[in-house]
């Protein structure tokens, strides 16, 4: 094989059904076109034929891919990407930080693909080139935290493990007498990384995820359910090979510059994403409050409960970073609460999405009997108690292995339905859920995790739950409260003020309703800067294919991306344009995948249609805050769906009527061979 730089040139393919492991060696051309992560994952989904609607996400034919990219490894901000078919029946592309990505690269793999279904619980142990499928019966049922710690102990490199060679005669006599050797050999190093699923993944909750390092998750779209459906408890990896660079000197120069820039970031280094919450409510008007009935508290003090500075003084213990990162956006936290069951919970901050979705969205921030439109009557102690609720819920989601964005939206839905008396406690197996009630949240979550009773329905997510109650009660109004875009929860960025996110962004992103699509600023311009928005999206998709953290994207910059890529891979003529094209490929493939796997004939009616998005965005003006009275697109739905959306598609080189990439576009991107057949079918 030709010497490869940056990449290792190998992808492992593991069939859990036949217990076989093989190696794929994609040609360099494929690497250059797709890099890794998102784009390459989509490429393999097409190759595997998973766009076929008949292949089920939770069936053995689905393929779970854990991918890294050319820069994952020594370079700063390493991540991993999971690419598979989501239980919601669209693409699941979900990224996560931690040391695992680097470890996988050091083990000599650009990714691993898992197909088939094991007949009993297993985990994968990857030590460099050796991949073993091991029995995981005793870990099944464990929470994510315990399972990860237990599994990591089992995987050591040959360099760290050895039988005993030490005897008394090696030691001085007095020493040997004092403390004779125990003859246990070597094996105390712990350098492996692990991704695991919690009980939610085992029970195939649709929004279960894969968790690593206790609090980092491949959060969205149900990666954990796919792993669970394969009886795969976890993946443990230990790599001892290092990474090769085409031009090491330049690589070191460029990356040290990036690190230096990062180390000057006051924002990230102070509170991470927790730093934005006060602004979200008081300035931007985009905070999810009580299932999006409000997006800003009338009293600016209320939001301080979940703000960086307050939580820092209250509970942050330290900070943690991914490899080479000086932004360290994760802050491990010790919860203190008067309520014994929450006291001394150890979790992470919560970060912004958790502050929104399992904070404001479930009514944790208000004191009893208070309305988000009221003045805040409490003091610091109330704030501390309320922050604890959010932190406790974050920990529950992490340890059970579930997405708190979808989960938070689901809880918000149930609470609003109860608020409006559209369902009763009897509909939830007797659990009387109400705004801010953390104990009923815990009870509901236990139902979901175990898949018992109503938990079976709730485990299919917000949209399906709304549909269930809507048909059970014969009340169409219930669908109005499902705050989902394309059947998946809206993340904690509001659309109505048009200062945080523009509604069009949620409509156009190809990972349904994602908040990390990029180009937000351009979407919010008036008139919309389509070019900038599309570039932003392509650039983010490219970053997710290089597989480093998009939070660090600003510190790398377009220049940095290309420079690092060149230094790592040795592709001297690689240009910024080429990099954006990788993002474009990811977008085109994801779009085609989503439409085809759902058998969609007319996207404008079935997929990119107003009925797939919350009517609340358009019909219910903001009741409070700096943008009081605003609605998305000023309530003009047709302006979004009939004017802005087709323009966006056109600018992308997609057809204006259906948003299908044209034959020319696919050819230009060099993906006709895998995508044209499907695209042609969708065009007709």
């Amino acid at each position, binding site marked *: 094989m030709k010497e490869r*730089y940056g990449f290792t040139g190998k992808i492992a393919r593991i069939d859990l059904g036949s217990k076989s492991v093989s190696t794929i060696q994609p040609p360099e051309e494929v690497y250059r076109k797709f890099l890794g992560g998102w784009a390459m994952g989509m490429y393999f989904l097409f190759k595997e034929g998973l766009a076929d609607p008949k292949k089920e996400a939770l069936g053995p034919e689905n393929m779970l891919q854990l991918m890294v990219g050319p820069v994952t490894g*020594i370079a700063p901000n390493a991540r991993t990407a999971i690419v598979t078919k989501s239980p919601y029946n669209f693409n699941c592309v979900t990224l996560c930080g931690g*040391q695992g990505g*680097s470890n996988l690269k*050091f083990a000599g793999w650009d990714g691993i693909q898992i197909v088939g279904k094991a007949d009993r619980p297993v985990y994968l142990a990857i030590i460099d080139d050796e991949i073993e499928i091991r029995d995981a019966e005793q870990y099944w049922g464990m929470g994510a*935290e*315990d399972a*990860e*710690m237990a599994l990591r*102990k089992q995987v050591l490199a040959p*360099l*760290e493990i*050895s039988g*005993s*060679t*030490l005897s008394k005669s*090696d*030691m*001085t*006599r*007095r*020493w040997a007498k*004092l*403390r004779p*050797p*125990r003859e*246990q050999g*070597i*094996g*105390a*190093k*712990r*350098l492996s*990384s692990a991704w695991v699923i919690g009980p939610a993944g085992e029970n195939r909750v649709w929004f279960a995820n894969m968790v690593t*390092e*206790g*609090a980092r998750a491949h959060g969205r779209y149900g990666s954990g359910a796919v792993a669970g459906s394969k009886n795969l408890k976890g993946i443990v990896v230990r790599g*001892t*090979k*290092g*990474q090769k*660079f*085409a031009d*090491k000197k330049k690589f*070191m120069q460029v990356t040290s510059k990036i*690190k230096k820039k*990062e180390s000057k970031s006051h924002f990230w280094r102070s509170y991470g994403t927790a730093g934005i919450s006060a602004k979200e409510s008081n300035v931007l008007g985009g905070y999810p409050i009580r299932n999006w009935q409000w997006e800003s508290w009338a009293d600016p003090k209320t939001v301080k409960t979940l703000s960086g500075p307050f939580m820092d003084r209250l509970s942050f*213990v*330290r900070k*943690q*970073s*991914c*490899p*080479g*990162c*000086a932004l*360290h956006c994760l802050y*491990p936290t010790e919860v203190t609460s008067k309520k014994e069951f929450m006291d*001394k919970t*150890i979790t992470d901050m919560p970060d912004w999405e958790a502050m929104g979705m399992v904070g404001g969205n479930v009514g944790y921030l208000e004191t009893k009997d208070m309305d988000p439109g009221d003045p805040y009557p409490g003091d610091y102690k109330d704030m501390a108690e309320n922050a604890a609720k959010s932190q406790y819920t974050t920990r529950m989601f992490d340890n059970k292995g579930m997405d708190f964005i979808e989960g938070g939206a689901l809880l918000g839905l149930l609470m609003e339905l109860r608020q409006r008396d559209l369902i009763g406690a009897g509909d939830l197996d007797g659990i009387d859920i109400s705004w801010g009630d953390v104990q009923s949240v815990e009870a509901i979550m236990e139902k979901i995790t175990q898949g018992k009773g109503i938990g079976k329905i709730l485990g299919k997510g917000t949209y399906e739950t709304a549909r269930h109650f809507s048909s059970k009660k014969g009340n169409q109004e219930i669908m109005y409260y499902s705050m989902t875009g394309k059947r998946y929860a809206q993340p904690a960025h509001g659309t109505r003020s048009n200062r945080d996110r523009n509604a069009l962004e949620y409509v156009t992103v190809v990972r349904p309703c994602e908040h990390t699509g990029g180009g937000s600023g351009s979407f919010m311009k008036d008139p919309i800067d389509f070019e900038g928005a599309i570039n932003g999206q392509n650039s983010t998709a490219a970053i997710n294919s290089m597989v480093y953290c998009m939070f660090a994207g600003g510190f790398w910059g377009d220049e940095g991306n290309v420079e690092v890529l060149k230094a790592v891979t040795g592709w001297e003529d690689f240009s910024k344009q080429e990099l954006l094209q990788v993002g474009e490929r990811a977008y085109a493939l994801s779009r085609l995948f989503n439409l085809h796997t759902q058998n969609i004939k007319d996207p404008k009616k079935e997929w990119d249609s107003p009925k797939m998005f919350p009517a609340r965005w358009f019909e219910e003006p903001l009741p409070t805050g700096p943008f009081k009275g605003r609605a998305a697109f000023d309530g003009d739905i047709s302006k979004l769906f009939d004017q802005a959306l087709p323009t966006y598609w056109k600018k992308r080189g997609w057809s204006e009527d259906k948003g299908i990439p044209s034959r020319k576009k696919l050819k230009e991107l060099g993906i006709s061979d895998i995508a044209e057949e499907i695209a042609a079918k969708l065009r007709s």
Partner: protein
Amino acid sequence: MTDFKQERVSELKQEYAKGAISRRDFIRMLTALGVSVSAVGMFSDSALAGEQDKASEPRENYTIVFDPTKCTGCLSCAVACADKFMQEIAPEQAKDSINLEFSRIRPMRFQFVDFVNICQYCELIKWAEGTSQHPCQAVCPTGAIRTVEQGEGKEGYTGMGYMTVDREKCLGIQNCGRCLEVCEEQFGSGISFDPIEGKAQVCTRCGGDPECVKACPEEGALKFMPTLVNGRYYANQPEEAAELLYKKMYNKNRGL
């Protein structure tokens, strides 16, 4: 800067370069003048600053200490260390790659705790254990682990008495491993083995000017400072240390 100040600074610079005043005095005088040290641009010139240090400051009893509340586990130290020692041990491979297995300092992540695994320079106690050697040194069958006396040793090392492994003599993990076994059993887990020949690696403190400390992006997380006690009091097995740290930092027993 005013003319007067500029004149005085350039005077001081010359004196410092000649060695007429110490680095410490130089900085103190600059501070008294109200001039920031970085503005003078003196210490970006590492050759000058480094040489002065080497001669003037013995580093006996200095050790590498990490602060678990400040360390973020970013691995920057390990990358710097690996790069340095790869160039020594495997220069051919070092030209185009970095492999963390060459690093003598390894941050290990235990979920919410990061523990930095590094040799603590434990010493046995003569009256109790019969020798004052380092334990790994004492059990090495070939005498491969040795201490280089202060002021001696490799070029570029500042003269700190440091530990090193004679790679010619070391039998390697395949045949021996006594050094790490005794370390893990009774002290920490401070020795590693390189991935090419499997020979033992131990932190040399870079002879008194550790690369890892310079590479650390978090102020105060990794320090090179004098300690008054035997390194064995800091030595811990990673997993046990992580549990201790967890207990201490989060005031809770994890019970794993």
